Protein backbone atom coordinates (compact mmCIF):
# COMPACT_ATOMS: atom_id res chain seq x y z
CA UNK A 1 0.00 0.00 0.00
CA UNK A 2 1.43 3.36 -0.92
CA UNK A 3 2.22 5.95 1.69
CA UNK A 4 -0.65 8.12 0.50
CA UNK A 5 -3.13 5.27 0.90
CA UNK A 6 -1.82 4.55 4.40
CA UNK A 7 -2.56 8.15 5.32
CA UNK A 8 -6.02 7.87 3.79
CA UNK A 9 -6.70 4.69 5.75
CA UNK A 10 -5.68 6.41 8.97
CA UNK A 11 -7.84 9.43 8.25
CA UNK A 12 -10.77 7.15 7.35
CA UNK A 13 -10.42 5.29 10.64
CA UNK A 14 -10.11 8.55 12.59
CA UNK A 15 -13.23 10.01 10.97
CA UNK A 16 -11.35 12.81 9.26
CA UNK A 17 -12.48 12.23 5.69
CA UNK A 18 -15.42 13.97 4.06
CA UNK A 19 -18.43 11.81 3.26
CA UNK A 20 -17.43 11.68 -0.42
CA UNK A 21 -13.84 10.72 0.39
CA UNK A 22 -14.99 8.02 2.80
CA UNK A 23 -17.48 6.67 0.28
CA UNK A 24 -14.74 6.47 -2.35
CA UNK A 25 -12.54 4.43 -0.03
CA UNK A 26 -15.45 2.15 0.81
CA UNK A 27 -16.30 1.59 -2.86
CA UNK A 28 -12.67 0.64 -3.42
CA UNK A 29 -12.53 -1.94 -0.66
CA UNK A 30 -15.94 -3.37 -1.50
CA UNK A 31 -14.65 -3.93 -5.03
CA UNK A 32 -11.28 -5.31 -3.87
CA UNK A 33 -11.16 -7.19 -0.53
CA UNK A 34 -7.38 -6.87 -0.40
CA UNK A 35 -7.85 -3.15 0.13
CA UNK A 36 -9.97 -3.96 3.17
CA UNK A 37 -7.12 -6.17 4.43
CA UNK A 38 -4.79 -3.20 4.05
CA UNK A 39 -7.12 -0.92 6.02
CA UNK A 40 -7.40 -3.60 8.72
CA UNK A 41 -3.60 -3.64 8.92
CA UNK A 42 -3.54 0.16 9.18
CA UNK A 43 -6.13 -0.10 11.95
CA UNK A 44 -3.94 -2.53 13.91
CA UNK A 45 -0.95 -0.21 13.48
CA UNK A 46 -3.04 2.74 14.66
CA UNK A 47 -4.30 0.88 17.73
CA UNK A 48 -0.80 -0.37 18.56
CA UNK A 49 0.60 3.15 18.22
CA UNK A 50 -2.07 4.48 20.57
CA UNK A 51 -1.36 1.76 23.13
CA UNK A 52 2.36 2.46 22.89
CA UNK A 53 1.68 6.16 23.46
CA UNK A 54 3.36 7.28 20.24
CA UNK A 55 0.45 8.80 18.33
CA UNK A 56 0.87 12.50 17.49
CA UNK A 57 -1.35 14.66 19.70
CA UNK A 58 -3.86 15.52 16.97
CA UNK A 59 -4.23 11.85 15.96
CA UNK A 60 -4.53 10.84 19.58
CA UNK A 61 -7.34 13.32 20.16
CA UNK A 62 -9.18 12.09 17.07
CA UNK A 63 -8.61 8.48 18.10
CA UNK A 64 -10.12 9.07 21.53
CA UNK A 65 -13.03 11.15 20.28
CA UNK A 66 -13.95 9.08 17.23
CA UNK A 67 -12.43 5.60 17.22
CA UNK A 68 -12.98 4.93 20.92
CA UNK A 69 -16.65 5.91 20.69
CA UNK A 70 -17.31 2.33 19.61
CA UNK A 71 -17.32 -0.26 22.42
CA UNK A 72 -15.96 -2.84 19.99
CA UNK A 73 -13.00 -0.57 19.34
CA UNK A 74 -12.46 -0.10 23.06
CA UNK A 75 -12.38 -3.87 23.40
CA UNK A 76 -9.84 -3.96 20.58
CA UNK A 77 -7.61 -1.46 22.35
CA UNK A 78 -7.74 -3.49 25.57
CA UNK A 79 -6.77 -6.64 23.68
CA UNK A 80 -3.90 -4.73 22.10
CA UNK A 81 -2.71 -3.60 25.55
CA UNK A 82 -2.71 -7.17 26.79
CA UNK A 83 -0.94 -8.45 23.66
CA UNK A 84 1.68 -5.74 23.98
CA UNK A 85 2.21 -6.51 27.64
CA UNK A 86 2.47 -10.22 26.91
CA UNK A 87 4.91 -9.63 24.06
CA UNK A 88 7.04 -7.21 26.11
CA UNK A 89 7.19 -9.60 29.07
CA UNK A 90 8.40 -12.43 26.85
CA UNK A 91 11.20 -10.34 25.23
CA UNK A 92 14.75 -11.02 26.48
CA UNK A 93 15.55 -8.54 29.28
CA UNK A 94 17.66 -5.64 27.98
CA UNK A 95 20.02 -6.04 30.97
CA UNK A 96 20.86 -9.59 29.92
CA UNK A 97 21.14 -8.52 26.30
CA UNK A 98 23.56 -5.71 27.18
CA UNK A 99 25.67 -8.06 29.28
CA UNK A 100 25.72 -10.53 26.40
CA UNK A 101 27.09 -7.81 24.14
CA UNK A 102 29.78 -6.92 26.69
CA UNK A 103 30.78 -10.53 27.19
CA UNK A 104 30.93 -11.03 23.44
CA UNK A 105 33.18 -8.02 23.00
CA UNK A 106 35.37 -9.02 25.92
CA UNK A 107 35.67 -12.51 24.61
CA UNK A 108 36.74 -11.17 21.23
CA UNK A 109 39.24 -8.84 22.89
CA UNK A 110 40.51 -11.68 25.01
CA UNK A 111 40.97 -13.96 22.04
CA UNK A 112 42.80 -11.21 20.17
CA UNK A 113 45.11 -10.75 23.16
CA UNK A 114 45.75 -14.50 23.31
CA UNK A 115 46.53 -14.57 19.60
CA UNK A 116 48.99 -11.69 20.01
CA UNK A 117 50.63 -13.30 23.06
CA UNK A 118 50.82 -16.64 21.23
CA UNK A 119 52.98 -15.16 18.55
CA UNK A 120 55.38 -13.56 21.02
CA UNK A 121 55.72 -15.90 24.03
CA UNK A 122 55.76 -19.57 25.01
CA UNK A 123 52.35 -21.17 25.02
CA UNK A 124 50.49 -21.01 28.36
CA UNK A 125 46.84 -20.47 27.35
CA UNK A 126 45.28 -21.67 30.65
CA UNK A 127 46.85 -18.85 32.69
CA UNK A 128 45.85 -16.20 30.14
CA UNK A 129 42.20 -17.28 29.95
CA UNK A 130 41.81 -17.68 33.72
CA UNK A 131 43.16 -14.23 34.55
CA UNK A 132 40.96 -11.67 32.88
CA UNK A 133 42.35 -8.16 33.37
CA UNK A 134 40.69 -6.17 36.19
CA UNK A 135 39.33 -3.57 33.78
CA UNK A 136 37.22 -6.18 31.93
CA UNK A 137 35.92 -7.65 35.20
CA UNK A 138 34.83 -4.17 36.24
CA UNK A 139 33.12 -3.67 32.90
CA UNK A 140 31.24 -6.98 33.28
CA UNK A 141 30.15 -6.04 36.77
CA UNK A 142 29.05 -2.62 35.59
CA UNK A 143 27.11 -4.16 32.69
CA UNK A 144 25.40 -6.63 35.00
CA UNK A 145 24.34 -3.78 37.26
CA UNK A 146 23.25 -1.48 34.42
CA UNK A 147 19.62 -0.54 34.87
CA UNK A 148 17.26 -2.27 32.47
CA UNK A 149 15.78 -0.06 29.79
CA UNK A 150 12.41 0.71 31.11
CA UNK A 151 9.62 -0.32 28.75
CA UNK A 152 7.26 2.45 27.82
CA UNK A 153 4.23 1.91 30.03
CA UNK A 154 0.90 1.82 28.25
CA UNK A 155 -1.27 4.83 28.88
CA UNK A 156 -3.84 4.32 31.61
CA UNK A 157 -7.46 5.19 30.93
CA UNK A 158 -8.68 7.67 33.55
CA UNK A 159 -12.19 6.53 34.43
CA UNK A 160 -14.84 8.50 36.24
CA UNK A 161 -17.59 6.47 37.89
CA UNK A 162 -21.15 7.57 38.56
CA UNK A 163 -23.72 5.36 40.21
CA UNK A 164 -27.24 5.88 38.90
CA UNK A 165 -30.65 4.75 40.07
CA UNK A 166 -33.47 4.03 37.65
CA UNK A 167 -35.81 6.84 36.71
CA UNK A 168 -39.10 7.11 38.54
CA UNK A 169 -40.41 10.40 37.31
CA UNK A 170 -37.93 12.86 35.90
CA UNK A 171 -37.83 15.92 38.09
CA UNK A 172 -39.29 14.16 41.13
CA UNK A 173 -35.83 13.47 42.59
CA UNK A 174 -32.52 15.32 42.58
CA UNK A 175 -30.82 14.78 39.23
CA UNK A 176 -27.48 13.01 39.54
CA UNK A 177 -24.84 15.42 38.37
CA UNK A 178 -21.53 14.56 36.79
CA UNK A 179 -18.63 16.94 36.52
CA UNK A 180 -15.97 15.62 34.14
CA UNK A 181 -12.47 16.82 35.07
CA UNK A 182 -9.95 17.57 32.31
CA UNK A 183 -7.86 14.63 31.06
CA UNK A 184 -10.63 12.14 31.88
CA UNK A 185 -10.67 9.51 29.15
CA UNK A 186 -13.73 7.51 30.04
CA UNK A 187 -16.91 7.71 32.06
CA UNK A 188 -18.25 4.52 33.61
CA UNK A 189 -21.95 4.67 34.56
CA UNK A 190 -22.79 2.03 37.17
CA UNK A 191 -26.48 1.36 36.84
CA UNK A 192 -28.40 0.14 39.86
CA UNK A 193 -30.57 -2.90 39.51
CA UNK A 194 -34.18 -2.95 40.60
CA UNK A 195 -36.23 -6.08 41.07
CA UNK A 196 -34.90 -9.21 39.42
CA UNK A 197 -31.67 -8.71 37.49
CA UNK A 198 -32.25 -9.95 33.93
CA UNK A 199 -29.91 -12.62 32.64
CA UNK A 200 -27.93 -12.42 29.42
CA UNK A 201 -26.18 -9.66 27.58
CA UNK A 202 -27.57 -6.14 27.91
CA UNK A 203 -27.03 -3.13 25.69
CA UNK A 204 -27.13 0.55 26.52
CA UNK A 205 -27.75 3.73 24.57
CA UNK A 206 -26.94 7.20 25.80
CA UNK A 207 -28.83 10.10 24.24
CA UNK A 208 -29.43 13.69 25.10
CA UNK A 209 -32.94 14.33 26.34
CA UNK A 210 -33.61 15.84 22.93
CA UNK A 211 -32.87 12.46 21.40
CA UNK A 212 -29.41 13.01 19.90
CA UNK A 213 -27.48 9.74 20.13
CA UNK A 214 -24.22 10.00 22.04
CA UNK A 215 -22.95 6.46 22.52
CA UNK A 216 -24.10 2.89 22.66
CA UNK A 217 -22.66 -0.48 23.44
CA UNK A 218 -22.69 -3.61 25.54
CA UNK A 219 -23.09 -3.39 29.29
CA UNK A 220 -20.41 -4.86 31.50
CA UNK A 221 -22.34 -7.15 33.80
CA UNK A 222 -21.77 -7.63 37.51
CA UNK A 223 -23.77 -9.55 40.09
CA UNK A 224 -25.11 -6.74 42.26
CA UNK A 225 -25.89 -4.05 39.73
CA UNK A 226 -27.51 -4.03 36.35
CA UNK A 227 -24.05 -3.35 34.95
CA UNK A 228 -21.67 -0.65 33.81
CA UNK A 229 -21.90 1.46 30.69
CA UNK A 230 -18.59 2.89 29.51
CA UNK A 231 -18.29 5.77 27.07
CA UNK A 232 -15.62 8.29 26.08
CA UNK A 233 -15.68 11.31 28.36
CA UNK A 234 -15.20 13.58 25.37
CA UNK A 235 -18.72 12.84 24.20
CA UNK A 236 -20.38 14.26 27.30
CA UNK A 237 -20.74 17.98 26.88
CA UNK A 238 -22.73 19.77 29.61
CA UNK A 239 -26.30 18.67 29.00
CA UNK A 240 -29.02 16.33 30.25
CA UNK A 241 -28.79 12.69 29.25
CA UNK A 242 -30.85 9.54 29.33
CA UNK A 243 -29.33 6.06 29.46
CA UNK A 244 -31.62 3.35 28.12
CA UNK A 245 -30.85 -0.31 28.77
CA UNK A 246 -32.27 -3.11 26.69
CA UNK A 247 -31.90 -6.85 26.45
CA UNK A 248 -30.51 -8.80 23.50
CA UNK A 249 -33.96 -8.98 21.88
CA UNK A 250 -34.34 -5.20 22.19
CA UNK A 251 -36.78 -5.37 25.11
CA UNK A 252 -36.50 -2.15 27.14
CA UNK A 253 -35.27 -2.85 30.67
CA UNK A 254 -34.76 0.50 32.35
CA UNK A 255 -33.75 4.10 31.86
CA UNK A 256 -31.55 6.39 33.88
CA UNK A 257 -31.14 10.13 33.90
CA UNK A 258 -28.10 12.25 34.66
CA UNK A 259 -26.78 15.73 34.02
CA UNK A 260 -23.28 16.77 33.01
CA UNK A 261 -22.34 20.11 34.50
CA UNK A 262 -19.39 22.24 33.43
CA UNK A 263 -16.05 21.30 34.95
CA UNK A 264 -14.65 24.00 37.22
Amino acid at each position, binding site marked *: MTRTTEDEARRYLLGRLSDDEGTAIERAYFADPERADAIAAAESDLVDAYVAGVLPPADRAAFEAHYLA*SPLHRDRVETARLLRREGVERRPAPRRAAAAVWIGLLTAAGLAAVALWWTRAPIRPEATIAQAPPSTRAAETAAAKAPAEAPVPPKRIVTLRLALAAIRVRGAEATPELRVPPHTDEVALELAAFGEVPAGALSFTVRTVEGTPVASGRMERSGRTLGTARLPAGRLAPDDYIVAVSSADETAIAQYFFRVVPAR
Partner: protein
Amino acid sequence: MSPRSDPDARALTPRAFALLLRRLGDDPERGGLGYESLRRTLVRFFDWRGAHAPDVCADETLDRLARRLDEDASIEDVRGYAHGIARLVLLEQWRRPRELPAGAADERLPAEAPPAEEDPREGCFERCLAELPEDGRALILEYYAAEGRQKIDGRKRLAAALGLSDTALRNRAQRLRDRLERGIRRCLDAEADTKS
Protein backbone atom coordinates in the same frame (compact mmCIF):
# COMPACT_ATOMS: atom_id res chain seq x y z
CA MET B 1 -34.64 -2.47 17.72
CA SER B 2 -31.94 -4.25 15.71
CA PRO B 3 -32.35 -4.64 11.96
CA ARG B 4 -33.00 -8.35 12.34
CA SER B 5 -35.88 -7.92 14.77
CA ASP B 6 -37.84 -5.75 12.30
CA PRO B 7 -41.14 -7.66 12.07
CA ASP B 8 -41.85 -6.23 8.61
CA ALA B 9 -38.81 -7.89 7.04
CA ARG B 10 -39.75 -10.69 4.71
CA ALA B 11 -38.07 -14.00 5.34
CA LEU B 12 -35.21 -14.83 2.99
CA THR B 13 -36.21 -17.66 0.65
CA PRO B 14 -33.83 -20.48 -0.26
CA ARG B 15 -34.23 -19.47 -3.89
CA ALA B 16 -33.10 -15.90 -3.19
CA PHE B 17 -30.12 -17.14 -1.18
CA ALA B 18 -29.12 -19.57 -3.92
CA LEU B 19 -29.36 -16.75 -6.45
CA LEU B 20 -27.09 -14.59 -4.31
CA LEU B 21 -24.47 -17.34 -4.17
CA ARG B 22 -24.66 -17.78 -7.94
CA ARG B 23 -24.10 -14.07 -8.43
CA LEU B 24 -21.05 -14.17 -6.16
CA GLY B 25 -19.32 -17.16 -7.77
CA ASP B 26 -19.37 -19.30 -10.92
CA ASP B 27 -19.86 -22.51 -8.98
CA PRO B 28 -21.19 -23.38 -5.52
CA GLU B 29 -17.74 -23.44 -3.93
CA ARG B 30 -16.73 -20.06 -5.35
CA GLY B 31 -20.17 -18.73 -4.51
CA GLY B 32 -19.65 -19.73 -0.89
CA LEU B 33 -16.20 -18.15 -0.82
CA GLY B 34 -17.60 -15.03 -2.44
CA TYR B 35 -20.34 -14.87 0.19
CA GLU B 36 -17.84 -15.18 3.04
CA SER B 37 -15.62 -12.55 1.46
CA LEU B 38 -18.50 -10.11 1.04
CA ARG B 39 -19.72 -10.78 4.57
CA ARG B 40 -16.25 -10.12 5.95
CA THR B 41 -16.11 -6.82 4.04
CA LEU B 42 -19.54 -5.84 5.36
CA VAL B 43 -18.59 -6.64 8.96
CA ARG B 44 -15.51 -4.48 8.58
CA PHE B 45 -17.56 -1.65 7.05
CA PHE B 46 -20.00 -1.62 9.96
CA ASP B 47 -17.18 -2.02 12.48
CA TRP B 48 -15.18 0.89 11.07
CA ARG B 49 -18.30 3.04 10.89
CA GLY B 50 -19.01 2.38 14.57
CA ALA B 51 -22.16 0.29 14.22
CA HIS B 52 -23.39 -1.42 17.39
CA ALA B 53 -23.50 -5.01 16.08
CA PRO B 54 -21.50 -5.27 12.85
CA ASP B 55 -22.21 -8.95 12.27
CA VAL B 56 -25.97 -8.49 12.69
CA CYS B 57 -25.93 -5.51 10.33
CA ALA B 58 -23.87 -7.49 7.81
CA ASP B 59 -26.37 -10.35 7.84
CA GLU B 60 -29.27 -7.94 7.44
CA THR B 61 -27.51 -6.35 4.47
CA LEU B 62 -26.95 -9.73 2.83
CA ASP B 63 -30.58 -10.71 3.35
CA ARG B 64 -31.78 -7.50 1.70
CA LEU B 65 -29.27 -7.93 -1.12
CA ALA B 66 -30.51 -11.45 -1.81
CA ARG B 67 -34.14 -10.26 -1.90
CA ARG B 68 -33.28 -7.40 -4.26
CA LEU B 69 -31.36 -9.67 -6.62
CA ASP B 70 -34.37 -11.97 -6.68
CA GLU B 71 -36.58 -9.02 -7.62
CA ASP B 72 -34.26 -7.28 -10.08
CA ALA B 73 -32.04 -9.33 -12.37
CA SER B 74 -30.49 -6.20 -13.93
CA ILE B 75 -28.17 -5.47 -10.97
CA GLU B 76 -24.65 -6.00 -12.28
CA ASP B 77 -22.25 -4.80 -9.60
CA VAL B 78 -23.34 -6.99 -6.70
CA ARG B 79 -20.61 -5.88 -4.27
CA GLY B 80 -21.19 -2.23 -5.11
CA TYR B 81 -24.91 -2.68 -4.59
CA ALA B 82 -24.19 -4.33 -1.26
CA HIS B 83 -22.26 -1.22 -0.25
CA GLY B 84 -25.29 0.93 -1.00
CA ILE B 85 -27.59 -1.28 1.07
CA ALA B 86 -25.06 -1.28 3.89
CA ARG B 87 -25.04 2.52 4.01
CA LEU B 88 -28.82 2.48 4.29
CA VAL B 89 -28.77 -0.13 7.08
CA LEU B 90 -26.23 2.00 8.95
CA LEU B 91 -28.35 5.14 8.62
CA GLU B 92 -31.41 3.25 9.82
CA GLN B 93 -29.55 2.04 12.88
CA TRP B 94 -28.47 5.54 13.85
CA ARG B 95 -31.81 7.16 13.22
CA ARG B 96 -34.04 4.57 14.85
CA PRO B 97 -35.54 6.12 18.03
CA ARG B 98 -35.72 4.06 21.21
CA GLU B 99 -39.03 3.85 23.08
CA LEU B 100 -38.82 4.78 26.74
CA PRO B 101 -40.09 2.11 29.14
CA ALA B 102 -42.94 2.72 31.57
CA GLY B 103 -41.99 4.00 35.05
CA ALA B 104 -40.26 1.41 37.24
CA ALA B 105 -41.89 -0.03 40.34
CA ASP B 106 -41.10 1.70 43.60
CA GLU B 107 -37.96 -0.16 44.78
CA ARG B 108 -35.48 0.57 47.52
CA LEU B 109 -32.25 1.97 46.15
CA PRO B 110 -28.90 0.35 47.08
CA ALA B 111 -27.38 2.07 50.12
CA GLU B 112 -23.91 2.38 48.61
CA ALA B 113 -22.12 1.88 45.36
CA PRO B 114 -21.09 -1.73 44.70
CA PRO B 115 -17.42 -2.52 45.12
CA ALA B 116 -15.22 -2.58 42.06
CA GLU B 117 -14.87 -6.09 40.74
CA GLU B 118 -11.82 -7.69 39.19
CA ASP B 119 -11.70 -7.14 35.45
CA PRO B 120 -12.41 -10.56 33.89
CA ARG B 121 -10.80 -9.47 30.65
CA GLU B 122 -7.31 -10.54 31.67
CA GLY B 123 -8.48 -14.03 32.56
CA CYS B 124 -10.34 -14.29 29.28
CA PHE B 125 -7.26 -13.07 27.40
CA GLU B 126 -5.02 -15.69 29.03
CA ARG B 127 -7.53 -18.47 28.34
CA CYS B 128 -8.07 -17.46 24.72
CA LEU B 129 -4.34 -17.06 24.13
CA ALA B 130 -3.75 -20.54 25.51
CA GLU B 131 -6.44 -21.94 23.20
CA LEU B 132 -4.65 -20.73 20.08
CA PRO B 133 -2.61 -23.38 18.26
CA GLU B 134 0.94 -23.41 19.58
CA ASP B 135 2.48 -22.09 16.37
CA GLY B 136 -0.18 -19.40 16.12
CA ARG B 137 0.40 -18.33 19.71
CA ALA B 138 4.14 -18.15 19.14
CA LEU B 139 3.63 -16.20 15.90
CA ILE B 140 1.32 -13.58 17.35
CA LEU B 141 3.48 -13.01 20.44
CA GLU B 142 6.62 -12.75 18.35
CA TYR B 143 4.86 -10.41 15.90
CA TYR B 144 3.87 -7.98 18.66
CA ALA B 145 7.03 -8.34 20.78
CA ALA B 146 9.20 -5.85 18.92
CA GLU B 147 8.69 -2.10 19.15
CA GLY B 148 9.96 1.03 17.52
CA ARG B 149 12.72 0.63 14.96
CA GLN B 150 13.14 -3.04 15.77
CA LYS B 151 9.54 -3.78 14.85
CA ILE B 152 10.00 -3.73 11.07
CA ASP B 153 13.27 -5.67 11.13
CA GLY B 154 11.86 -8.17 13.60
CA ARG B 155 8.80 -8.82 11.46
CA LYS B 156 10.92 -9.23 8.32
CA ARG B 157 13.06 -11.79 10.12
CA LEU B 158 9.96 -13.59 11.35
CA ALA B 159 8.48 -13.66 7.83
CA ALA B 160 11.74 -15.02 6.42
CA ALA B 161 11.95 -17.68 9.14
CA LEU B 162 8.41 -18.81 8.32
CA GLY B 163 8.90 -18.64 4.56
CA LEU B 164 6.16 -15.99 4.20
CA SER B 165 5.96 -12.66 2.46
CA ASP B 166 5.58 -9.59 4.67
CA THR B 167 1.96 -9.28 3.57
CA ALA B 168 1.17 -12.94 4.23
CA LEU B 169 2.67 -12.68 7.71
CA ARG B 170 0.71 -9.50 8.39
CA ASN B 171 -2.54 -11.14 7.28
CA ARG B 172 -1.86 -14.25 9.35
CA ALA B 173 -1.11 -12.17 12.47
CA GLN B 174 -4.28 -10.13 11.84
CA ARG B 175 -6.43 -13.28 11.56
CA LEU B 176 -5.00 -14.58 14.83
CA ARG B 177 -5.64 -11.23 16.49
CA ASP B 178 -9.22 -11.18 15.19
CA ARG B 179 -9.70 -14.73 16.51
CA LEU B 180 -8.36 -13.65 19.89
CA GLU B 181 -10.74 -10.67 19.99
CA ARG B 182 -13.76 -12.83 19.12
CA GLY B 183 -12.80 -15.37 21.76
CA ILE B 184 -12.41 -12.67 24.41
CA ARG B 185 -15.82 -11.21 23.56
CA ARG B 186 -17.48 -14.62 23.85
CA CYS B 187 -15.66 -15.26 27.10
CA LEU B 188 -16.73 -11.91 28.57
CA ASP B 189 -20.36 -12.53 27.56
CA ALA B 190 -20.18 -15.96 29.20
CA GLU B 191 -18.74 -14.37 32.37
CA ALA B 192 -21.57 -11.85 32.39
CA ASP B 193 -24.17 -14.62 32.02
CA THR B 194 -22.56 -16.54 34.88
CA LYS B 195 -22.68 -13.56 37.23
CA SER B 196 -26.23 -12.48 36.39
